[in-house]
């Protein structure tokens, strides 16, 4: 009877425990006063009681007991976003059935209480709840919930929710002043920087570049970056290669035909590298440096102005030719008619320093320096006008037989102008007083003309040689041109302007014949005669720069002996070009060996551009232009064909035919690579673009396989347990010799496990693949053996052929049995 009673109690206990454990979950029993925690709970803690205390905690369904009337609310406030209990609103509450945390009492929140959010704070005002210290179930609204913003700072509702929609593809993200800050949502882009139309570009949405379809991915400047479908050459993908020195070039090809090397075009322009490696572009070439010989004839069609210029007021545009000492020989200037050896004045737009563009030598041009007459001739020599030139001759010819020694061209006759009274007005000289004693030509009159130059007083004109038949038109003077009715200078003796000047070569010259006709400045008391061109050149070596010609005392000579080339060589030898704003300076350098550098003053090649950017051939300037860029970094060099603001455009190499070689200078096919080719996603042939027709794999290797039998076992010989395989695309070929080293009661089917790839299930029905199997050392075989690979398998099933089909082979094998396997199958 006692046993029976115990059994009943046991059953009751079992039921209770079953219920207890079944409900041992994280049940909650929220109260706003811990004293209200229950003593028992038949649902969550069946059979248990905390009498005379309260349930205060739950350990895996075991109620924890505590005098909860002793639990006080927290002494400090707390903030919450969590609704622990729907029964109560904001403020501290407690969970009698809380899972135990730290020390007893277990129904508190690690020694505190739970701060329950207030529904109004949370839902209406979008704010957190601040539970009041030392009070149960009392709270206020706190700061904005994460992701909400009180932009209008009314302190009530946090009205802007981050992520909320504020336009096409746009969402709020914080505040912008008193309103929400609208930004692009994930996957959207405000490429035009105008939020009025929202974030108009959505990543992944359809776009096109020319005839190429693509999808947007971010912005490229002010428009969406359209990533087009990759072409056969993957030009839509940024590729990285490592080509080391000696490995060749990144893009290495040779055109054995006559077509262009590169011909890239767009709707806006064309970039061509022709068969002679000339770079031809309808756009600009922009680079830090150009290196190489610069043939100016190819820039003659440049804009008529500013093709070598600077816009910086501080610096003049300069073209220098350092290292050349004879510019006359090394360089020549050509005018717009193609005529070589032009003077600066003859070259359109050329303005020499201090010299006018006209043919006359004006007084200011003399004063500004061109010839230093003080040093023009060596000591003991003097300068004289010789024909059209100035020349030096020895001073020892100081005795003149008569005035015939004076060249008609002597322009010192200017010295007779108004200073000498009516010398040129009445043509009759009453006495020599009309001659100024200071006339230095009196030196030339010395012994021949009596005391003409000794006493400075002239008794009569007899002191003058009879030949001096000064007349109104000077005809009587020697062989002056009798036809001449003009003057010897631009003004006659009376100061009247003359249209002609008379010279004693019986030729009538007009003033325009004289390029440097104002030699008034020569009236320095010295007798000058003509200088020959050679003498003038000797007096003005090329080393003289313009600045040295500053002799303001120089008078009366001609400087047109500075020939065109001398001017060019002297003034136009420049080696550097600066940027329009002066920086960089220089922007272009031409060094002594003729190398031209952009971005370097020591170019290593005929044209060298040093830049961390790119050498660009563009269809135009600015956004939307098509460009082909060349660049180099420490890791690789690159060529990129691209439309700014839109994305990549195809880069065609030899579009007109011709082979391209990589790693070879003699490509034998359209693309000849001396090395390996890697295609990350595969190779397509012909015009095929179907993914299924992509040749995407090649692999070869070996696998270790094992024998399996339906019953018993067969151990493979470790010396013959390997199959070699080659995989081309999905086609797999496996072959090798396998041998069994030992068996243990083998029976049932025999299979070889461990093929390198799973056989594909290409058809809805059985797609087994036949395998060629040759055997040795089998027992009881009459009709040979066969093999097959089931779809979705990595095994080869080896079977014995029968008259009507095949049967299991497991009981025909023995130690030493061998198989020669050759299998071709299609992998998944």
């Amino acid at each position, binding site marked *: 009877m006692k046993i029976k009673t115990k059994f009943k109690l046991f059953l009751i206990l079992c039921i*209770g*425990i079953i219920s207890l454990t079944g409900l041992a979950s994280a049940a909650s029993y929220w109260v706003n006063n811990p004293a209200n925690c229950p003593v*028992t709970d038949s649902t969550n803690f069946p*059979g248990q009681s905390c009498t005379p205390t309260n349930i205060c905690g739950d350990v895996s369904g075991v109620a924890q007991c505590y005098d909860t009337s002793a639990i006080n609310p927290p002494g400090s406030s707390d903030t919450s976003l969590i609704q622990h209990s729907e029964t109560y609103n904001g403020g501290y509450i407690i969970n009698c059935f809380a899972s135990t945390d730290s020390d007893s009492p277990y129904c508190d929140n690690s020694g505190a209480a739970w701060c329950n959010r207030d529904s109004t704070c949370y839902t209406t005002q979008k704010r957190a709840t601040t539970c009041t210290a030392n009070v149960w179930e009392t709270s206020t609204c706190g700061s904005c919930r994460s992701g909400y913003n009180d932009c209008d700072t009314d302190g009530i509702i946090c009205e802007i929710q981050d992520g909320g929609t504020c336009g096409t593809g746009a969402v709020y993200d914080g505040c912008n002043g008193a309103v929400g800050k609208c930004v692009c949502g994930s996957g959207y882009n405000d490429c035009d920087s105008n939020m009025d139309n929202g974030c108009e570009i959505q990543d992944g949405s359809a776009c096109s570049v020319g005839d190429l379809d693509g999808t947007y991915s971010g912005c490229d400047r002010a428009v969406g970056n359209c990533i087009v479908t990759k072409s056969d050459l993957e030009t839509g993908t940024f590729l990285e290669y490592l080509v080391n020195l000696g490995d060749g070039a990144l893009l290495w090809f040779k055109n054995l035909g006559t077509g262009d090397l590169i011909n890239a075009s767009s709707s806006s322009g064309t970039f061509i590298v022709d068969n002679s490696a000339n770079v031809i572009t309808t756009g600009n070439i922009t680079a830090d440096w150009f290196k190489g010989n610069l043939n100016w004839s190819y820039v003659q069609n440049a804009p008529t102005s500013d093709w070598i210029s600077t816009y910086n007021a501080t610096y003049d545009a300069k073209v220098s030719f350092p290292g050349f000492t004879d510019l006359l020989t090394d360089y020549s200037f050509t005018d717009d008619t193609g005529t070589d050896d032009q003077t600066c004045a003859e070259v359109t737009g050329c303005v020499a320093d201090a010299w006018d563009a006209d043919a006359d030598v004006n007084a200011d041009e003399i004063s500004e320096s061109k010839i230093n007459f003080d040093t023009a001739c060596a000591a003991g020599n003097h300068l004289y006008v010789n024909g059209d030139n100035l020349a030096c001759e020895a001073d020892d010819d100081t005795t003149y037989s008569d005035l015939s020694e004076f060249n008609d061209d002597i322009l010192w006759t200017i010295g007779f102008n108004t200073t000498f009274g009516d010398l040129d007005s009445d043509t009759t000289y009453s006495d020599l007083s009309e001659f100024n004693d200071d006339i230095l030509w009196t030196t030339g009159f010395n012994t021949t003309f009596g005391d003409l130059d000794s006493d400075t007083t002239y008794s009569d004109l007899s002191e003058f040689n009879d030949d001096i038949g000064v007349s109104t038109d000077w005809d009587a003077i020697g062989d002056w041109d009798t036809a001449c009715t003009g003057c010897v200078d631009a003004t006659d003796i009376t100061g009247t302007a003359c249209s002609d000047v008379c010279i004693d070569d019986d030729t009538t010259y007009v003033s325009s014949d004289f390029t440097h006709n104002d030699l008034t400045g020569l009236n320095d008391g010295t007798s000058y005669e003509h200088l020959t061109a050679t003498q003038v050149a000797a007096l003005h070596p090329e080393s003289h720069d313009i600045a040295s010609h500053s002799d303001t005392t120089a008078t009366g000579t001609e400087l047109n002996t500075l020939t065109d080339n001398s001017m060019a060589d002297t003034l136009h030898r420049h080696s550097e070009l600066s940027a329009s704003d002066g920086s960089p300076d220089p922007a272009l350098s031409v060094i002594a060996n003729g190398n031209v550098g952009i971005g370097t003053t020591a170019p290593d090649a005929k044209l060298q551009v040093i830049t961390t950017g790119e050498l660009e051939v563009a269809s135009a300037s600015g956004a939307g232009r098509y460009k082909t860029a060349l660049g180099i970094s420490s890791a690789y060099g690159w060529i990129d064909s691209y439309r700014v603001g839109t994305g990549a455009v195809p880069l065609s190499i030899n579009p007109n035919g011709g082979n391209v070689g990589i790693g070879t200078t003699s490509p034998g096919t359209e693309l000849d690579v001396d090395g390996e080719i890697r295609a990350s996603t595969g190779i397509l042939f012909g015009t095929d673009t179907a993914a299924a027709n992509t040749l995407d794999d090649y692999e070869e290797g070996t696998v270790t396989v094992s024998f399996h039998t339906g019953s018993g076992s067969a151990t493979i010989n470790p010396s013959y347990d390997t199959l070699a395989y080659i995989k081309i695309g999905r086609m797999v070929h496996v072959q090798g010799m396998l041998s069994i080293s030992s068996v243990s009661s083998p029976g049932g089917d025999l299979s070889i496990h461990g093929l390198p790839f799973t056989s594909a299930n290409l058809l809805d029905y059985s797609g087994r693949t036949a395998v060629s199997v040759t055997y040795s050392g089998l027992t009881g075989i009459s009709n040979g053996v066969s093999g097959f690979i089931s779809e979705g398998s990595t095994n080869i099933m080896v079977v014995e052929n029968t008259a009507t089909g095949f049967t299991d082979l497991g009981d025909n094998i023995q130690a030493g049995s061998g198989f020669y396997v050759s299998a071709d199958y299609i992998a998944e």
Partner: protein
Amino acid sequence: MIFLIFIITFVSAVRLPTVDGDSGSWGTLLNEFLSKFVGADATYLNVSGNITAGEYFIGDGSQLINIGATFHNITSITYNGSITNGSLVGYQAANQICDLTFADTHLCTTDEIIQTIRNKNISSIDSFVNLDTAWIIEGPPGYNANVNDCQGWTSDSNSDLGPFWAYNKNGGGMGWLTNCESQKALSCCK
């Protein structure tokens, strides 16, 4: 299974007939002797010593009364589910504590409490106090291993359970489980 029905009552001094003696009275003596044990109609068995059976006592036990210990008192000292006393632990320690607190007592089992309520006038038992709670023995686990008298009164884990009785003179109270971290007195029976 059939249980033997027997009642144990007080047995007075009677004797069996003497062999080769008590001539003419041995039957009377034998009847007197037997009547003391089984009554005149053999409806009960009354012995002062032990009843020993080579095999089973057969009967339903419904009349087996006043044969076990009953509630005596609870200790004034409380214990969690891990009970020790000197070198003793578990049930032995609990029994020894009861015995040392109340002579000849031990830690009550559920049966003993039930029998007390059944067979005693609990309203007159001063130590049977309303709202008192004290550990009792329930024995083996009902379902989970942790419901096994606080691991045989060796565990004070709050995830183990031990039985206790909540005393109430009105109706006797009820038995409960509570975690072994709880502090409770021991129910002692004799």
